[in-house]
């Protein structure tokens, strides 16, 4: 039942938390509740989710207490706020969706937390702060804030701070707007903690966190004639340590590493990572399945993890000619591409994630399955995030998909029975511990490694 991964860690992910539903649980899936992004902050104490309705929900990990062993490391709702609203571009007669495409946390520098959230067009910086005291004893106004009648004031008092129920306040600090003609797909905070970049289909802009009225364009792949368009930018990320380096992926399956020191406009890449196409594997959908949907630097900064429709690949920054490792996520779909094209599933953009030590990679699939690959032992596991198959504290059972007509074991699921409406596009891994957050449509699952929880 348990899958032995690297360094003896027994990755039996158990539904030790909780299984978070959004406040209202309708019988049908409300489109606005579909989770569109998940992100841990740098310590893992906070977990933010964004949804299609433009809301952000932040979860906070409860500190462990010896008195209540089962609530160790539990994530509870910390704050909820409306980040983006639907807008209308009058010039182009286009509606701008409020769906949160990405959330990125800033490293914490004081008591408050800051995060960036973006929809298709506008990026916002939010300050999340706690208030647990309030001043009482004003001279000129009463407890409700009404101005006192001066004649009733007979003596002066100094207001004092009194404790109050914890209140989490979220306020917008910056709005970075009107810089993107196309749909923003990525944001990434630089390691200098002063700048960040936002990428849309054709351009990447560099911002200073304090300046909202201008940004620098650092990549522009828009052709002079739009009819000559052959590829778009699909994801972008800054190097975790080198503030001058960033990578962006394209719909053609290439990665470009750019150095901002070389030129103001980084149209020319420093390195181009591309795997030559296998001509024998050519099909109608070759271009679609080679499009990179997500790119992530490893924590070390040495490797890149990319996801395309059927595979996840690890690239070494020192080797441009081909990936270091290729992992088949759901190769059994290769013969189903026509149907997946017809029902639009082939356009699904799956994300990928590294664990804290860069030894395991994780990505989502269909039927609420998600996959983990251990880079060292080369073992992999398929797990399911669903209410039916998981009870609190139960150990997740590895799942198996068998090809149609193949030898079938008990509990195997055949390719034809997969539910393609249940897709896990967004996953996140705690920066230090074996805790993962899985977004399955409108549900958020947080799993903890059994060994991890036993240690506490």
């Amino acid at each position, binding site marked *: 039942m348990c899958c032995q991964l690297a360094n003896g860690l027994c990755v039996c992910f158990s539904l030790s938390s909780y299984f978070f539903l959004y406040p209202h649980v309708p019988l049908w899936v409300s489109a606005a509740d579909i989770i569109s992004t998940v992100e841990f902050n740098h310590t893992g104490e906070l977990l933010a989710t964004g949804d299609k309705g433009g809301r952000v929900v932040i979860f906070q990990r409860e500190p462990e207490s010896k008195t209540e062993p089962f609530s160790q490391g539990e994530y509870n709702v910390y704050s909820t706020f409306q980040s983006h609203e639907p807008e209308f571009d009058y010039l182009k007669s*286009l*509606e701008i969706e409020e769906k949160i495409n990405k959330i990125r946390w800033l490293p914490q520098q004081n008591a408050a937390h800051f995060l960036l959230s973006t929809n298709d067009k506008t990026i916002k910086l939010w300050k999340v702060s706690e208030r647990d005291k309030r001043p009482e004893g004003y001279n000129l106004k009463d407890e409700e804030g009404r101005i006192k009648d001066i004649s009733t004031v007979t003596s002066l008092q100094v207001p004092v701070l009194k404790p109050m129920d914890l209140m989490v306040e979220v306020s917008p600090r910056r709005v970075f707007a009107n810089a993107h003609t196309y749909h923003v797909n990525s944001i990434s905070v630089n390691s200098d903690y002063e700048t960040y970049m936002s990428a849309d289909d054709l351009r990447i802009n560099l911002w200073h966190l304090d300046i909202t009225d201008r940004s620098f364009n650092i990549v522009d792949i828009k052709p002079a004639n739009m*009819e000559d368009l052959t590829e778009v930018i699909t994801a972008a990320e800054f190097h975790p340590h080198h503030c001058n380096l960033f990578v962006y992926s394209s719909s053609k399956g290439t990665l470009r590493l750019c150095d901002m020191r070389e030129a103001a406009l980084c149209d020319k890449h420093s390195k181009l990572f591309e795997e030559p196409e296998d001509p024998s594997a050519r099909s109608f959908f070759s*271009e679609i399945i080679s499009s990179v949907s997500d790119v992530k630097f490893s924590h070390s900064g040495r490797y890149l993890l990319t996801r395309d429709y059927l595979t996840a690949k690890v690239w070494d920054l020192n080797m441009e000619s081909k990936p270091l490792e290729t992992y088949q996520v759901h190769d059994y779909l290769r013969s*189903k591409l026509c*149907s997946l094209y017809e029902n639009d599933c082939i356009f699904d953009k799956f994300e990928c994630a590294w664990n804290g030590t860069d030894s395991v990679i994780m990505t989502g699939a269909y039927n609420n399955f998600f996959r983990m690959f251990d880079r060292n032992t080369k073992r992999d596991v398929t797990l399911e995030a669903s209410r039916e198959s998981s009870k609190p504290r139960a150990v997740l059972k590895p799942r198996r998909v068998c090809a149609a007509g193949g030898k079938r074991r008990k509990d195997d699921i055949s390719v034809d029975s997969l539910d*393609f409406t249940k897709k896990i596009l967004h996953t996140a891994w705690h920066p230090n511990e074996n805790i993962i957050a899985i977004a399955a449509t409108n549900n958020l699952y947080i799993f903890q490694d059994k060994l991890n929880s036993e240690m506490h």
Partner: protein
Amino acid sequence: MNCFPLTFFFLDKPIDRPETLSFTLISISLMKIHNSRTQRGGIKLHKNLLVSYVLRNARQVYIKEKYAEIYRMQQYEEVMTVCNEIQELNPLELDAEDTEDEDLTRTEPEPVYYRSCCMEAPLPSPCDQLPDCCCDAFQCAQSAQSPAKKRKMDFGYCASDLDDFTTSRKRLKREDCLYSCQDFTDTSNISNLISIFGSGFSGLLSRQADLEQICSKQALAGLGAWTRAIVAF
């Protein structure tokens, strides 16, 4: 919306006629592009780009298969024509052979004007076999452009790599202006669009003579097996 279980698995089963699959993909792709205009959030550039790649790939396969089919049909017609001529003769007559040869040369098909198409297909592709409407439509589309551009496009079509996304995008734009109001679920409209895509190769007239020679030789070569052919068909 992709909220349905896979109901179209039949598309993934082997299909006897490959051009059926490519035809289906072409119509699906066109519908997707059409629907994307009314989708919330504006036209998604990335998705439409990918759809246009599928459209291009399907079109290429469809055209190749269509031309191969037309060539096969043409071969068959030529063989049948000659067979019919031969059947009029009495095979038992000794001097029939001489007459046969005479008849063959007499009944050799008139050199037909073949507007050749430049593409990767190894066989000559008689464009005049395609329905007339496509040529007309294509001419209409081309005439919509300025003469200088038109000339440039002719060269482009002849010489350029057919894998060029540009061509497919240009054609997409053309069909766009011609058929912007059409309901793409109408099969006959889609077949017209296919014809437009299929007729996107203006000819190199200098190849005409070569083609005539090739066709004649092939006709003659086919005669050696005419008895077999008659039985087969």
